[in-house]
């Protein structure tokens, strides 16, 4: 789960990382008021969970409260990469001498947290990694030891930070490490970390991503989730313990297991269809889950056919078949539904579905072909 910049900065300041004075505004009037409290010279920043806000015009400098109000009104009316801007952060403008980068993420290959610093801050660090990898200093952290001071100094020296800043830099790096571990983050990033003209370090922008698996341990963080930034079907699915991801195609998918769900989407594409979604109904696909899944798939108006692909392991296919029948009975969908059951009790399951005027398939390839045909308007879904 990604946090907004203002939420990340709030956490930064709780851990004594210096951030600019600022407040969140929901309206232009609030923005004007905050700007006058801050002395007029402010930066207005759209709070949306995508990169490239600056290029999209979502970050603007204002010289006085009235200009702040006008700019806030413009930004609050914007959509950035499809996301409407509901809030702006109004921060005191900083006098920037240098822009640096400091962040922690997880190195999956080394199986360690990795600390990264760069003298090239204020731009996307992944781009720096591509174009000028020598400008990124990396230090692997032993998770049982945590960040040690000498490692922070290695980072400071590596980005040619003046020696008089090393002490405060080490404090900031240590705080960042504490934020990373105590919030179960998978990414914390200060970008840019600026060296101001009066020689202080200041976290001008920040990103924090929290490990979804750890959210039950952090109810305070879970509450920060911005539902406005999410697809409604994805929120609905989460309530039922389902994983749903919206795609652009016309074939709704319902599959048990993440790997099989991805493979099912791939095979639809291989047969010139486009999946409308990823949906993993998980283990023990009972009637309730199947019903919930079917309702969620049908909320998407571009769905033209539904492919249900279940591989019974511990889950028994006859139980799943009963779940499907009860869901169909309940919802009475008018779209063609193609069902493929395999594995434990698949024959019993298929028998239950046989008299119900549903299209069935024995193999994944056959099921995909039939679903693609049906989505393209061939109602009986017979690939011929």
């Amino acid at each position, binding site marked *: 789960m990604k946090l907004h910049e203002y939420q990340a900065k709030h956490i930064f300041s709780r851990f004594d990382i210096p951030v600019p004075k600022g407040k969140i505004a929901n309206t232009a009037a609030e923005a004007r008021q905050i700007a006058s409290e801050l002395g007029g010279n402010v930066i207005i920043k759209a709070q949306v969970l995508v990169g490239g806000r600056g290029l999209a015009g979502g970050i603007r400098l204002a010289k006085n409260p009235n200009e702040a109000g006008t700019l806030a009104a413009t930004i609050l009316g914007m959509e950035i990469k499809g996301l409407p801007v509901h809030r702006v952060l109004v921060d005191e403008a900083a006098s920037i001498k240098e822009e640096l980068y400091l962040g922690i993420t*997880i190195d*999956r290959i080394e199986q360690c947290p990795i600390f990264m610093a760069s003298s090239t801050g204020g731009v996307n660090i992944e781009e720096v990694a591509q174009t000028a990898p020598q400008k990124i200093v990396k230090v692997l952290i032993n998770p049982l030891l945590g960040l040690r001071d000498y490692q922070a100094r290695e980072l400071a020296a590596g980005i040619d930070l003046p020696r008089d800043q090393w002490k405060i830099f080490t404090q900031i790096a240590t705080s960042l490490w504490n934020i990373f571990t105590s919030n179960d983050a998978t990414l914390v990033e200060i970008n840019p970390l600026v060296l101001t003209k009066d020689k202080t370090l200041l976290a001008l922008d920040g990103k924090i991503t929290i490990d979804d698996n750890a959210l039950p341990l952090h109810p305070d963080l879970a509450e920060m989730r911005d539902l406005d930034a999410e697809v409604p079907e994805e929120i609905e699915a989460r309530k039922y313990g389902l*994983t749903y991801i919206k795609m652009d195609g016309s074939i709704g998918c319902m*599959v048990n297991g993440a790997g099989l769900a*991805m493979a099912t989407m791939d095979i639809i594409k291989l047969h010139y269809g486009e999946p409308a979604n990823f949906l993993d109904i998980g283990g023990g696909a009972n009637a309730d889950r199947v019903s919930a899944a079917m309702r969620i798939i049908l909320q998407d108006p571009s769905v033209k056919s539904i492919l249900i692909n279940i591989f019974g392991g511990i889950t028994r296919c006859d139980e799943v078949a009963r779940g499907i029948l009860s869901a169909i009975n309940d919802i009475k969908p008018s779209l063609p539904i193609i069902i493929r059951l395999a594995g434990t009790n698949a024959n019993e399951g298929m028998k239950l579905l046989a008299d119900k005027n549903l299209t069935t398939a024995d193999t994944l390839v056959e099921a995909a072909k039939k679903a693609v045909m049906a989505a393209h308007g061939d109602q009986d879904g017979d690939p011929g």
Partner: protein
Amino acid sequence: MAILVNKNTRLIVQGLTGHEGLFHAAQMQEYGTIIVAGVSPGKGGTWEMQGKIPIFDSVRMAVEATGANSSIIFVPARAAPDAIYEAAEAGVKLVVCITEGIPVLEMLRVSAFLKTKNTLLVGPNSPGIISPGIAKVGIIPAQIITRGSIGIISRSGTLTYEMLNALNSALLGVSTCVGIGGDPIIGSTYIDLLPLFEDDADTEMVIMIGEIGGSDEERAAEYISNKMTKPVVAFIAGRSSPPGKRMGHAGAIIEGGTGTAASKIQALENAGVKVARHPEEVVELILRGTTTEN
């Protein structure tokens, strides 16, 4: 004689008295796995499974009393890291963790700790291991698999079952199938297991089932290219998955341009691995490979 799980496996079930633990312990025992003990803190001294399996309060006590060499973990995510540490401290050689949902920072600590121990962890978020006809340590359904000479390493659960079923229909058997788990940080990756299959007399070829996220498949490709003499066939799920989205598995995410299916497929093909476009095609590639080589 298969890898990791064989007739010498003496298994402890951590969390045996729970709903899942009891169900799968019975399934494993029925398949022929030698289960020697269960561990459930606070329930030591009781007996389960028709009074035949003793329950201990700690893994150490269970190992001392029974000489167990392997363990399987069926405890909730909150308790699972502790269960792994406990098994490793007690000297258990193979630990299979079925639990899904362990926070990644916990797993980083586990992984750092295990570097100091002589314990191989498989999982978490794994369906376990099966050596057909010999034993299974996990939840892989046994009826869709027969003994043979193909080794399997997979990051997925039901996708693996799909593959096993397709092999079974084509009368192709398996030496050992290892589900390594769908999390970003796992105990054993392809490069830990490929050498075991390379050295295993029962295994003639290996199927790798991968998916988007991370670069373990790319590293496997490097190993295969440099060290592997046995043929490898692969399937990578997620060709049509969008970047930045976690596709069900915690580890299945394309981040910052790394972890794409295209990159994995390219690396594997460069290493001489045949990559199937869908699970059923794996069988076709194997059958074609066998006939042309003969």
